[in-house]
């Protein structure tokens, strides 16, 4: 048996199919993964993401510590509540984890890391805190619900604490409203508008039920994966890991090379890799033939293997199979995917595939 979030009894009550995920027992779907996916693209869905781990980082050296720890630069976070997506790298330039970090007030930050890597991440953070005046606080007391979709914010608004409601509704994308007990970010992992709400664990079931009563569809990990794939967002452990770094997984945009004197962990290795320029490139694929692309299938060019699928699946919005893949630099616009021994034609495209309910690639 895995760990259970505070919402586990709600998932059971709703008849979810529960599966092990990153050490937790989590809902895969509540009936139809496709319906859950469409609910998020068309109206509003909610996800229990309490398995993800908020970590508070505070102290006089919090900023200089995070500027050393993370490959993106928290010095960009000039306004309180602003969020930043970053990789946390090892010295080889591989990815320890990807995370979101929010600036709260000077000297105070909140990061959210992945469930399966939380123990490793916090040990890594502690280890690299030596010499910095900083406290690292694992917030196991918080639950987290993501409410996503074009109607998500409106449906959630009335359910937010009165003192946080107006600030939350006025948030720009990638900002958070900080109510100390509740923390509401206008962020997500679906390519739709919405909130990610952190709140005390004992209040989570109440919010979940109220959202459900407001017509928000409970959604499981299955829909979460097809939504993030359509949105062209990476999944840690699949698209990148401790050996596959950001340059090879489409995350070059998250690296803050300037200022040149900032010494973040992994910088030296990444600089060498960048200057050598012969690393794999990360692309989107649209299957033009019939079938479904799956992880680890080979990408072929004129019958020669040129790369591998890192995340493949069926896109419910496009009703086609799509994938993210790592391939040799300079491949043509068309290729084949090896599916059960057959070469099935595909087109190389630039992710995202879908944003805000609309196709972003030509079919």
């Amino acid at each position, binding site marked *: 048996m895995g760990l259970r979030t505070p919402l586990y009894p709600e998932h059971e009550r709703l008849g979810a199919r529960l599966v092990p995920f990153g050490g937790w027992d989590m809902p*895969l*779907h509540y009936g*139809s*993964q*496709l319906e859950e996916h469409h609910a998020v693209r068309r109206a509003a869905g909610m996800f229990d993401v309490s398995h993800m781990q908020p970590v508070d980082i505070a102290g006089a050296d919090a900023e200089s510590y995070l500027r050393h720890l993370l490959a993106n630069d928290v010095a960009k976070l000039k306004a309180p509540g602003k969020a930043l997506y970053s990789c946390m790298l090892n010295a080889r330039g591989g990815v320890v984890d990807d995370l979101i970090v929010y600036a709260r007030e000077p000297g105070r930050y909140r990061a959210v890391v992945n469930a399966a890597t939380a123990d490793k991440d916090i040990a890594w953070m502690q280890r690299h805190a030596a010499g910095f005046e900083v406290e690292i606080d694992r917030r196991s007391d918080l639950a987290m619900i993501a409410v996503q979709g074009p109607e998500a914010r409106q449906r959630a608004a009335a359910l937010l604490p009165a003192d946080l409601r107006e600030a939350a509704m006025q948030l720009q994308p990638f900002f958070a409203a900080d109510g100390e007990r509740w923390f509401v970010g206008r962020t997500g992992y679906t390519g739709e508008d919405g909130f990610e709400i952190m709140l005390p664990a004992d209040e989570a079931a109440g919010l979940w039920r109220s959202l459900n009563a407001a017509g928000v569809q409970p959604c499981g990990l*299955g829909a979460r994966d*097809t939504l993030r794939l359509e949105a062209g967002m990476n999944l840690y452990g699949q698209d990148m890991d401790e050996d596959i770094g950001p340059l090879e997984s489409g995350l070059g945009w998250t690296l803050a090379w300037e200022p040149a004197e900032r010494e973040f962990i992994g910088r030296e290795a990444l600089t060498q890799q960048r200057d050598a320029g012969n690393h794999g490139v990360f692309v989107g694929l649209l299957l033009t033939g*019939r*079938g*479904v692309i*799956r992880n680890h299938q080979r990408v072929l060019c004129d019958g020669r293997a040129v790369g591998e699928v890192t995340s493949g*699946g*069926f896109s*419910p919005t496009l009703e086609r*199979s799509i994938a993210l893949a790592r391939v040799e630099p300079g491949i043509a616009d068309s290729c084949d995917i090896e599916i*059960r021994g057959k070469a099935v034609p595909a087109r190389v495209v630039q992710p995202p595939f879908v944003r805000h309910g609309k196709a972003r690639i030509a079919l």
Partner: protein
Amino acid sequence: MSEVPAELRYTKTHEWVKDNGDGTLTVGITDHAQEALGDIVFVEPPEVGRAIAAEEASAVVESVKAASDIYAPLAGEIVETNATLTDAPETINTSPYEDGWIFRFAPADPSAYHNLLDAATYEQAVEDEDD
């Protein structure tokens, strides 16, 4: 508990088999199987005329989650595949025992049909699997 029609025969790998009374058998997947697979988005049928061995992977059903092989219940030759599934693979979810059939084949030994699992035995196998 999922539906298990009494008049059909079954395999341990969750195919159902129907005797058409004309020397051919029809194959699909059970209600239990479609529920476990989730939303089905693609079916790769066998080619008509293909010789199949018993327990040979003969078709593929892909759900949003994963690809699953469909095994031939008995040796024989494929005579027809369900064209509906090309454009509406989700028919397997909505009608696993009727409109969602996958292929029809002529068994090499028609009497072997009676060696397949009956409904009660299949139901028991599913229960044991869930324990």
